[in-house]
């Protein structure tokens, strides 16, 4: 039973971490130029 609850807690932590990373990426403006990002990988060599 303990294992079950430990896993539940772990799951939520991992999910929450994903949510935090998303919020961070949103705040740093990574969704503001999706078109540019798609094109940039073709050109940036460094």
């Amino acid at each position: 039973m303990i294992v079950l609850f430990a896993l539940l807690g772990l799951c939520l932590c991992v999910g929450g971490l994903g949510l935090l990373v998303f919020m961070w990426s949103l705040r740093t403006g990574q969704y503001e130029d999706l078109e540019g990002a798609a094109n940039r990988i073709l050109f940036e060599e460094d």
Partner: protein
Amino acid sequence: MTAAAVLDRAVPPAPASAVSICAHCGLPAPAGQRFCCPGCGVAFEVIQGLGLGRYYRERLLDPAGRAPKPDQVARPDLARHVVTAAEGTCQLTLAVDGLQCGACVWLIEQVLARDTAVLQGRVNMTTRRLRLVWRGDASEAERLVALVETLGYRLVPFEREALAAARDAAGRSLLRALAVAGFAAGNVMFLALATWVGARSGMGPATRDVLHWLSALITLPAIAYAGRPFFASALAALRQRHTNMDVPISIGVILVTGLSIWQTMIGGSQTYFESAVMLLFFLLTGRVLDHRARGRARAAVEDLLTLRSGDATVVAADGSTSSRNLQALLVGERILVGMGERIGADGTVASGQSLLDSSLVTGESLPVRTGVGDAVFAGTLNLGAPITVDITAAGAGTMLAECVRLIEAAEARRGRYVVLADRVARAYAPVVHLCALATFLVWTFGFGVHWSQALVTAAAVLIITCPCALALAVPAVQVIATGKLFAAGVLMKSATALERVAAVDVVCFDKTGTLTEPELQLERVEDSAALAFAAAIAANSRHPLSRALCAAAGPVVAAGDVEEHPGEGLSCGAVRLGSARFCGLADNTDEGAELWLAQPGIPALRFGFSEHLRIDAVETVARLRRMGLTVRLLSGDRAAAVQRLAEKLGITEWQAECRPADKVSVITGWQNAGAHVLMVGDGLNDGPALSSASVSASPSSATELSQNVADLVYQGRKLAPVMVAIDTARKARRVMRQNLAMALGYNALVVPLAMAGQVTPWLAAAAMSLSSLIVMANSARVRSNGKA
């Protein structure tokens, strides 16, 4: 084959035939020449000199887009827009005109990165904006902007207020809400699955309760956070004493969550946490997409206007001149309007005599002679000599004041359009809530079930009817239709425009600038050698007539030693190209705009200019008629000109010499007779007509006023986007109705089941998701070009 090799083939090799292709901008160049103009040669040198030749191999030029041809345009005052930051750095954000592909972004960034002063030069390809940060003072801006303009792009600084609005706080908060709802939906669903499986495989009630509590712990904050957009909208609607789609959504979500918490507290098995958060997740997806599509259209219109706004030359009392942004002009100041410039403000002519093209303002296609004391309007193009204008306030009685008054009156008259989804919601919400109430009452008093059990059944009715599919039915279609139109160059500015366009049965066009090209075009010239000769001289000038001449002549090598005599014409040795007087002829014609070519020993040759139909006008009008629409024409121009054009297009219902108020009364007359009118116009004088029609459209060459009033703005030189917009809107409406029918049909099927108490939580969650997915899949059909 590598990607680079594939792209390489897109750059056409220079053909050996008469016309070659410019190595820089890709436009036709004179035979045997590498470049079409010296500017392109310089750009090519700069790019090769910096070792960025890769640009030419990997770019993809869109023939419909603006070619990267360097163009000398008066640069707006940059220093005013520069933001000075700490430690001696400056920032500037500019709109970039001419971005075509990833290679353009790469080129601009690389060129800027090689400049030692630049700390950051980053292009946002989605919004087509360049953010510049550099070390030094504000005056550096001129040099950096000139550097990028050498390459063939055009940069225009943004007003600071416009930038603040562009940060799009609403879009971000929607995205955050979506993330929270997504996180909660995923986790709660996985807890719910465990309880559903557990119910069959003997999970103990204690474990189940723990899982329920955990779900509640995740769901409550998630709903409080992610549900705000819906709760706020529902509250606002209720305060104004009407309902919208958000009212049943909010009631459903709150009731279901409340019931689930109560079930959790008493240790019951019927919780619906997963349904509640999933509902929010689906709905927010629709909102985010919807917001993106519309935000993109709005930003595009804003950019169009920014790129067009310019500066005026202000003449001080001592005769000195300075450049100032149009928005910063004051009443009482005097401005100098050169040949080929647009007048920046309303005023009266203080000195000089000229020929003005006021087609954008009054719809009059022939240029008008103007002298000292005459009133002139912002947006008028000066074709003749330089004049100075005293700026006057837009006092009562001017064209602008009249138009603004009429627009305000029309907007006050126009009722709030109720979108299809809200109309359905108004009928739907009471029915659903009555069903739930009836279920509760019948189970409690009819079958004598304990009230708590009856309440669970009633709540199941609410969940299963929670208007998820219904709320997605319209936005899902709207997103796809707006996106499709955006790609076709039609920018939908208003949320309800799509539905209003679909209902249109009368299309009413303005003539000048809408059915005809926005610029004057050269009339037919027999002597093509003389035309090429004149064009070679005209290539040195930016005057609108010179440009029209060059456009008609095709690629030519600009002649050397050409001198421009402002307001008169061009001279190249003994050869003169310009006004009749400049060429030594009697100045007595009133036949419109013209240029004369005078060569020693040869009789002077006249080049006349007039308005031409847009290339696809005849075809588009015919196709609109085939779509079952009535096409009409309302113009401010003279009857003879309007009649000639109407006959060419086969339009039988036309009216000429309309003042702005006449257009409004004609359109209101049709509307009172039951017609839904789409007004298409571009001029200042069309503004009131645009705002009084059921829905309105403007070409992107239209005046700022018209573009602000119009519900949709279309780009390009063709008229076809109007037809595409109507076609797409009709298809979208068909699919919206199918979606609504499907959503309602699904409800009709499952509601009896729910009322009979046969719906379990997993069935509710599955049915809701399935109906939403079906509606979304059906909406995708709008994208296809076939019949929907």
